[in-house]
């Protein structure tokens, strides 16, 4: 074992590794990250709050983040958002109200409270009303906290999760 061996064999190896990291690995990682941030992402969701739409044990979902997706969010869409109570946590909920809408906070309560959604906010609620931490606790959520729109479920039961909201004709719609 001599220093000659180090300079002739080991050093070129480290130099190659360094070049590979700087010129190939880092740009590739950046490229993938940028695609995740500006095109879309495949990500895992877990928890009981979106039953029966999503599994409790976990679903792999396709999330859209194409430029302008925030303006395309409509009532009935599933969205990913950062929890206002903990910035490290993300959750999936359904949009139930857009800016300007007035809605009932919790129809199951004895005393009904109504809220008007302010500018730039949305009202989010899980499909499983009995086990969901959502706008009923956090209040209206800023659009800037939304992190993506859920397009489809990839696994275990592949299907699109597009907005299938129907407006039932009634005294709210025909003025």
């Amino acid at each position: 074992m001599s220093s000659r061996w180090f300079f002739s064999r080991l050093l070129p190896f480290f130099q190659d590794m360094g070049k590979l990291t700087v010129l190939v690995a880092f740009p590739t990682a950046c490229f993938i990250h940028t695609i995740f941030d500006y095109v879309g992402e495949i990500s895992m969701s877990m928890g009981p709050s979106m039953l029966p739409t999503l599994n409790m044990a976990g679903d792999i979902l396709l999330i859209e983040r194409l430029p302008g997706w925030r303006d395309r969010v409509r009532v009935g869409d599933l969205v990913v958002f950062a929890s206002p109570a903990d910035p490290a946590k993300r959750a999936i909920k359904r949009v139930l109200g857009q800016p300007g809408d007035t809605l009932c906070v919790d129809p199951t309560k004895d005393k009904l409270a109504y809220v008007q959604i302010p500018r730039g906010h949305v009202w989010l609620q899980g499909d499983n009303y009995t086990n969901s931490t959502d706008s009923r606790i956090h209040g209206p959520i800023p659009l800037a906290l939304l992190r993506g729109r859920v397009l489809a479920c990839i696994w275990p039961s592949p299907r699109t999760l597009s907005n299938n909201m129907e407006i039932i004709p009634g005294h709210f719609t025909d003025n």
Partner: protein
Amino acid sequence: MSSATRLFRRRLVVGAVAAVSVVVFVTDNVLSLQMISGRSMQPALNPDSNRLWRDVVLVNRMVKSDMTSRLNRGDIVTFTSPFDPNRCIVKRVVALPHDCIVPLGKPDSFVRVPMGHFWAEGDESFHSNDSNSFGPIPLALVDGRVITPIWPPSRFGARIPPLPEWKRPRIFANGSTRLSDLDR
């Protein structure tokens, strides 16, 4: 077209894509520049509103990875407006989660900053639209922490003054101790 030209073109495209994605990644997650408009942070930023120039500041974007532990009272942060996702606001962090604060103009009331939120105020309170008007702000809206102004050249590396002294008695750290008593 010769194969050498084709190879050169392919390398050019790959290089351009790599360069753009590295720049986008760095400006989103590591370090970026931002222009300050308005006078809500005077005198820390944009000290002379008569001039035509605006301050350009260096923003540390790495705070995004762990906002609950990397922000301190007195830091100047940029965050997305809760009312308009396309607008960015620059204000000072005045209180952190679980702190209590007396809002400006309401000396008899108390606000407890909820979990995962912070209280943002401009230094120039009379020209500032901040938490005193719209309440505590989710930490998840923070984009980065202002490091220092770098433009115009006369302001390069200017020290950012600490939290104004007159605001300190209004803040109760963790809801119990006045921030001004904590220093003694």
